[in-house]
C-alpha cells in the first residue's frame, strides 16, 4: 500500500485500530491530544468504544476493567498524566492483564512544559507504581517504527499478560512523516483469553481478576511468577539496533528522537574522519544489555545522549561495568539537541579537531 502522510499522534491512533483496538479510554493532555481526538471520531465509526474519562486515574482504571474482560484496550497520555496512571498500571501488572499505554513525553518535574523530553526514562523503566513489576517498553525513533511497534505491541501485551508502554517524545507525536500501515509485523503465538472475567460464565467456572494476596506465601509466589516474565523479557526479547559499529572509536547510546539526530551527527563526524557508532535501544525495558557485549575492540569511549539530565546513562554504566569511560550529554526543558551539538561532544571526547 502507498504511504500516507500523517501526524505522529494520529498515525499511532490508526495503528492501534489496525491492531484490533476494542476500546480507548483517555484524558486530554498536551502534546498527545490529536491521538484521542482522532479516536473519538474513528472508534464509534468502527463500532468500538471511546470514553473521555474524568481523569487520567479513571481512564487507566477503565483500561484495567476492559483488559480484565479480555478486550484489546489502550490509553495515551503525557508525562504528568502517566504519573497519575501509575495506580492503574501497577494493578494491571499485578493482575496480569494486557494493555497498551502510549506516553508522548514532555518536560518536568511538576507541570514542567509541553515540549519534547525523555525525562520519563526512569518513570517508565522502573515500573513506575508500587511493587515489583515492569512494563515492556518500546521507544521508536520514527513514525513508521512507532506504527509497526504499536501494531505488534497488542500481541506482546497479550503474550506476556503485561502492560506495554510505547515511549515517544513530543517530537514524534507532533511531526508528520509518510507511513505505510500495511507493513507486516511479527505475529506472536497467543492463547485464548480463558482467564477473562467477561460475564460469560455459562460453561466454565467463574473467573476472578485480582492483585490482592493477603497470605505472604501466596504473594511471594505471585511475585516470583511475575519475575519469571520479566526474566523472559530480558533473556529473549531485548531489542536494539547497532549502527556503524565496524572500526568505531566511539559509540553514542541514544533512543527515540535523540538516536535519530545522532544518525546525522555520525555523518558529520565521518566527514571529519571520526568513526562513530550508535547503539539504539528499541526496548528501554528490558534494557538491551546484550548490545554492550557486542561492542568491538576499536571502541574507546561511550557517549550517552538523552533529552534529560542523565537517566539511561545509569543503565549504560551498569552494563558497561567500568570497561569503558561513559560520558553524558543531555538537553532539557523541551530543547532538542542538534546534530552539531552531538558531534561537537564526540569531538571533545576523542580529542579531535574540536577546540
Amino acid at each position, binding site marked *: 500500500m502507498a504511504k500516507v502522510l500523517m501526524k505522529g499522534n494520529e498515525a499511532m491512533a490508526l495503528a492501534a485500530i489496525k491492531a484490533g483496538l476494542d476500546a480507548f*479510554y483517555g484524558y486530554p493532555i498536551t502534546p498527545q491530544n490529536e491521538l484521542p481526538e482522532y479516536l473519538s471520531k474513528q472508534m464509534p465509526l468502527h463500532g468500538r468504544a471511546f470514553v473521555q474519562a474524568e481523569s487520567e486515574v479513571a481512564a487507566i482504571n477503565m483500561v484495567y476493567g476492559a483488559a480484565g474482560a479480555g478486550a484489546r484496550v489502550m490509553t495515551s497520555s503525557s508525562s504528568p498524566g502517566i504519573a497519575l496512571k501509575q495506580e492503574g498500571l501497577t494493578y494491571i501488572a499485578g493482575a496480569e492483564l494486557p494493555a497498551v499505554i502510549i506516553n508522548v513525553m514532555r518536560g518536568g518535574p511538576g507541570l514542567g512544559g509541553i515540549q519534547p523530553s525523555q525525562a520519563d526514562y526512569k518513570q517508565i523503566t522502573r515500573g513506575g507504581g508500587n511493587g515489583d513489576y515492569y512494563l515492556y517498553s518500546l521507544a521508536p525513533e520514527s513514525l513508521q517504527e512507532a506504527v509497526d511497534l504499536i501494531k505488534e505491541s497488542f500481541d506482546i501485551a497479550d503474550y506476556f499478560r503485561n502492560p506495554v508502554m510505547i515511549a515517544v517524545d513530543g517530537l514524534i507525536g507532533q511531526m508528520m512523516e509518510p507511513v505505510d500501515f500495511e507493513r507486516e509485523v511479527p505475529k506472536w503465538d497467543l492463547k485464548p483469553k480463558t482467564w477473562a472475567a467477561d460475564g460469560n460464565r455459562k460453561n466454565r467456572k467463574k473467573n476472578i481478576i485480582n492483585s490482592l494476596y493477603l497470605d505472604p506465601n501466596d504473594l511471594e509466589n505471585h511475585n516470583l511468577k511475575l519475575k519469571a516474565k520479566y526474566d523472559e523479557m530480558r533473556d529473549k526479547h531485548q531489542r536494539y539496533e547497532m549502527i556503524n559499529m565496524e572500526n568505531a572509536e566511539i559509540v553514542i547510546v541514544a533512543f527515540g528522537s535523540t538516536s535519530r539526530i545522532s544518525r546525522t551527527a555520525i555523518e558529520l563526524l565521518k566527514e571529519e574522519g571520526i568513526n562513530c557508532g550508535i547503539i539504539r535501544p528499541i526496548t528501554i525495558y528490558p534494557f538491551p544489555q546484550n548490545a554492550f557485549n557486542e561492542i568491538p575492540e576499536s571502541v574507546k569511549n561511550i557517549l550517552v545522549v538523552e533529552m534529560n539530565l542523565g537517566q539511561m546513562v545509569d543503565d549504560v554504566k551498569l552494563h558497561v561495568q567500568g570497561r569503558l569511560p561513559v560520558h553524558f550529554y543531555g538537553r532539557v526543558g523541551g530543547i532538542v539537541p542538534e546534530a552539531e551539538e552531538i558531534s561537537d561532544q564526540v569531538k571533545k571526547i576523542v580529542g579531535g579537531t574540536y577546540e
Partner: protein
Amino acid sequence: MSNVKTVYKKSEGLSDFHLSYCPGCTHGVIHKLVAESLVELDLLDRTIGISSVGCSALNYDFFSCDMQQAAHGRAPAVATGIKRVKKDAIIFTYQGDGDLASIGIAEAIHAAARGENITIVFVNNAIYGMTGGQMAPTTLPGQITTTSQNGRDPETQGLPLKISELMATIPGATYVERVSVHDPKHVFKAKKALKKAFEIQRDKKGFSLIEFISTCPVNWGMTPKGAVDWAVDNLIPYYPLGVYKDKTEGIE
C-alpha cells in the same frame, strides 16, 4: 422423609467461602440480597461484579459470578471500562462509604453523569471499617472514630455527605434509592430496590445506585443489636430512606 422439603437455602449466587465480616455486620445480608436478586432474574451467568477496597475487598471470593477487584474508589471506572466492551453483561460495583464517598466520589459522579448502564451497591456504615474505624465522609457530627476521637467536629471536619441526595441531582442517573436492612420488613424492601436496579440495567435504561444503611458493631464499639438500634436512631434520621430518583416512574 418424603415430606421434607427445602424452604430456604443459601443462594447459588454466593460461593462456599466463609464471609470475612465481623459478627453483626450487615454486609452478609446485603451480599445475600445481591446474590438472590441476580439468581432470581436469571442474570448471574452474565454478571461481572467489581470488588472495591475496604471490608468488601475480598468479596470476589464470595459471589459466584465473574469478579474483578478494583483500586480504592475506582470501581465505577472499572465498571465503565468493562461495560463499554461487554454491553450485554450485568455489571455491579460493591463499594463502602470510604471508597465511594471519599476517594472515589469523582468516579461515582462521572459514571452517573455518563449514564453508564451499571448498578452501584453502596454500603454506608458511616466509618472506615477495614482500616480500623477512621472517620468517613458519612460519619455523623459528634460521632467518635479513631481519627475523630473527640467526635466529628463540623467546624473543622465538615458535615456528612448525603450520597443518594447528591447522586439524584445528576441528570444521567436513572434510579437512586436509599434502603436499610435493620429488620425483615426493610430487608424485603431493600431486595425489591436491588432487583429493580438490575432490571433497569438489564433493560438498558441506565445508571442505578442503591445505598444501604449498614452497621459496624466492632468499630462503633457496640453489640450487634446495639449497632442496629444506633443505625435506626441516628443514621436513618440523617439519611432518610426512600426513592430519590426513578426516571422509569417519573420521580426526579
